[in-house]
């Protein structure tokens, strides 16, 4: 259907690039969102101080050319690029940056709901004035303009979330004029039913600095149109118009691509990768940036308190087969709880190869030849790190059976699964995480820093290893500590890391695809029509 409208000339100028996401974006203001579909759109328009390198996971300068941190890690000084202007013509300067941070810090009312400002809370804690007693004190203190192009952000304490946190799409910088214009548009609605402000629902109200500007958000047709910013500070985009559509159904996305209705889509089902490639589509490979693990909850089953049992189960699972048959190309067996693209990955961790005999032996030693254990897995869901939970469960179940372990299946839909596993109802369960930014703490911190009912163990060695990382303000120094922590964790084996899975993205043959990013942060300015 596409080619009908080819009227000759440069397709980049005449033809929109249509890309299918899996859901509608939530807001055009990334500060009010926490989902990838929103960020896919906003990232093209609203740029952050720091970014991950194109197609990789190394942290680089974004709007800030360079940055420094103070010794104690509480002061972050950024050196902004020169000559950057917002889409509304205003210049990018330190004041503009600070205006953004101050705006977020001073959010009130329903903006303080974690549904709206999840990432701010995740990285900075609370707000200037917390309205909910459960919100922690904010670690954000202030932002000052040291000079025209040098904003300094001061924290009350150092955090392992930085500098990575500054790459978060949520912290895309908006023009001061926009901030002023939307200042009076509070999150509306009654208590318990916040309505997102109008500016976040329609194009035209907010300006960023990115290679694209918001063209239109057609809610009826479920499409967001991005128009090229010809005054972009960097290399301008090739394609004039990018349209991001919603196709929530996996196979519908594939069929739309095959029928030529879209030029690309994200989250390709692993089983579709090969056939698509054979049909001439391009499936650029992303590096892995996530982890799937099978957690052992030692409070749910005391048998798991025995390290031999934990190890036996690890030996029983044929993780290679999962990678070979279920994950898309580029998937890896996980040796630890972070992928090797994250700094702090250790090559010296203890490994547990697939060895059913060894598993049986260990179980025998532990006196658990007839172990019966419950195993939870989620339904109605595929996550980037876990494309087919049921199939993975099936394989593990068969493996465990081979080692003499009987599994009692317990499945829940996603929204029930999380509280179910969090509160320690499952002895074994599948879960994982896709990193927000390149910092091992973003993975390990939530799991192993202290006692967690989701894991149900207390191990001082592990907790201390994590504490050591958290209190080290120097990012470089942290790397070595992470390696130690990973080794400690894998010795203790609180759960079995299974795999790292690259979520696939696909493009039609007539497109030069953008660099595939392990953090799924593709930049459409890199794409063009052949």
């Amino acid at each position, binding site marked *: *259907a596409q080619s009908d409208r080819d009227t000759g000339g440069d397709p980049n100028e005449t033809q*929109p690039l*249509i890309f*299918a996401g899996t859901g*509608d974006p*939530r*807001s055009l203001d990334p500060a009010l969102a*926490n989902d990838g579909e929103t960020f896919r759109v906003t990232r093209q328009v609203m740029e952050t101080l720091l970014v991950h390198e194109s197609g990789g996971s190394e942290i680089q300068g974004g709007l800030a050319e360079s940055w420094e941190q103070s010794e104690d890690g509480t002061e972050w000084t950024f050196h902004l690029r020169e000559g950057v202007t917002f889409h509304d013509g205003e210049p990018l300067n330190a004041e503009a940056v600070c205006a953004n941070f101050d705006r977020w810090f001073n959010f009130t009312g*329903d903006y303080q*709901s*974690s*549904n709206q400002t*999840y990432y701010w*809370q995740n990285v900075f804690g609370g707000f200037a004035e917390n309205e*909910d007693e*459960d*919100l*922690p004190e904010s670690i954000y203190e202030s932002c000052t303009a040291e000079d025209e192009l040098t904003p300094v952000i001061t924290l009350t304490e150092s955090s392992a979330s930085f500098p990575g946190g500054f790459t978060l799409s949520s912290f895309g910088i908006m023009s001061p004029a926009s901030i002023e214009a939307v200042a009076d548009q509070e*999150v509306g*609605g*009654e*208590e*318990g*039913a*916040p*309505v*997102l402000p109008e500016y976040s*629902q329609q194009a035209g109200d907010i300006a960023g600095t990115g290679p694209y500007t918001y063209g239109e958000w057609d809610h*009826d*047709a*479920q*499409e967001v149109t991005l128009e090229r910013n010809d005054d972009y500070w960097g290399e301008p985009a090739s394609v004039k*118009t990018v*349209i991001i*559509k919603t*196709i*929530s*159904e996996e*196979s*519908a*996305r594939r*069929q*739309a691509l*095959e*029928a030529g*209705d*879209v030029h690309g889509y994200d989250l390709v089902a692993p089983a579709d990768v090969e056939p698509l490639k054979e049909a001439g589509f391009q499936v650029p490979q992303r590096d892995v940036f996530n982890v799937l693990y099978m957690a052992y909850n030692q409070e749910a089953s005391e048998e798991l308190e025995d390290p031999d049992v934990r190890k036996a189960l690890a030996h029983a699972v044929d993780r290679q087969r999962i990678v070979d048959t279920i994950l898309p190309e580029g998937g890896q067996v996980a040796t630890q709880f972070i992928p090797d693209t994250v700094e702090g990955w250790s090559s010296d961790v203890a490994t547990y190869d697939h060895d059913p005999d060894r598993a049986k032996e260990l179980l025998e030693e532990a006196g658990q030849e007839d172990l019966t254990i419950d195993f939870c897995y989620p339904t*109605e869901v595929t996550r980037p790190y876990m494309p087919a939970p049921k199939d993975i469960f099936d394989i593990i179940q068969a493996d465990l059976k081979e080692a003499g372990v009987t599994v009692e299946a317990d499945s*829940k*839909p*996603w*929204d*029930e*699964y*999380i*509280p179910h596993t*969090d509160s320690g109802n499952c002895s074994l369960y599948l*879960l*994982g995480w896709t990193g927000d930014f390149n910092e091992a703490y973003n993975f390990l911190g*939530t799991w192993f820093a202290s006692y967690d009912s989701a894991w149900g163990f207390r191990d001082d060695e592990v907790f201390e290893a994590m504490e050591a990382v958290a209190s080290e303000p120097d990012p470089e120094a942290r790397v070595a500590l992470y390696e130690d922590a990973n080794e400690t964790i894998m010795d203790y084996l609180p759960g079995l890391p299974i795999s790292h899975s690259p979520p696939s993205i696909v493009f039609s043959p007539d497109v030069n695809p953008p660099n595939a990013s392990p953090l799924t942060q593709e930049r459409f300015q890199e794409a063009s029509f052949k």
Partner: protein
Amino acid sequence: MLRFIVRRVLQAVPTLFGLSILLFIWVRSLPGGPAYALLPENATAEQRDALRRAMGLDDPVIVQYGAFLGRLAQGDLGESLQTGRPVLTEFAMKFPATVELAVMAMLIAVAVGVPLGYVAARRRGGPLDALVVGGSLVGICTPVFFLAFVLKLLLAEQMGIFPSAFRQTPGIDATRITGLFVVDGIATREWDAAWDALMHLVLPGLALSSIPLAVIVRMTRAGVIEVLGEDYVRTAEAKGLHRRTVRGRHVLRNAMLPVVTAIGLLSGSLLAGAVLTESVFAFGGIGQFIYSATQTRDYPVLLGFILIIAAIYVAINLLVDISYSLLDPRVRVS
């Protein structure tokens, strides 16, 4: 007539009211909840609790229901937790797609079903009859989503005749007025946009029409068979009327009476959201939205949408009754 309408509308009030209570209890007793569906895996327990509180989900159900009714009285159905937009806005955005789709499916079903049913009845017992009846039964027995896939595979991917997804080609220059893309295109004389939207309706329309088509074929057939045996058809024949007069005025007009009811009821269920078809064709109507609302436990959307749908359903039933009474003078309401 007016009295009849008023009566029916008033009768619907307790039904809808009862339904709202049931729905409310149902929706609130769903396990899990938006706090878990909306936040990422790594969110802390505190964050989830805070969100629950912020959404007012910690209050007793009766208090929540009271608040809901209070807002409902002002015509406010709350806001979607998923998208942060008012439920009514959300409905207004999704409903036109569903309407377009339902109308298309119904048009196909009627335009194809009635003639087929008539022919089958006329050739009752013959091979054509068996084919039509058998085909309609197969239509009923095929899971809609599977049919949709097959249609897409053949007509969109293999032959490329129709587009495989969306309501309109992305980026097409179209003005939105009503949200019904075809209507908008015609109203604004953007003929290519209208045509484009129409072409996008064909496949989902076909897929969705399979069940109504089968029902209409069979009802028409049964109706025509019955009417053909009626004395008044014999009277008409005895008057030597032309075949088409007999067929149109005497046979079909009467045989269509039950079909009209069926069309109404079928439209009701089509409008309620063709969950499967919409998701297979990325059509973005209310069915798909309700489905995703069940996944994210978007309570206000579930409650609001289903109530609106029930109201629409009741309204359609009323329309059916009214049109029935227009078509059949015997049941004409005073």
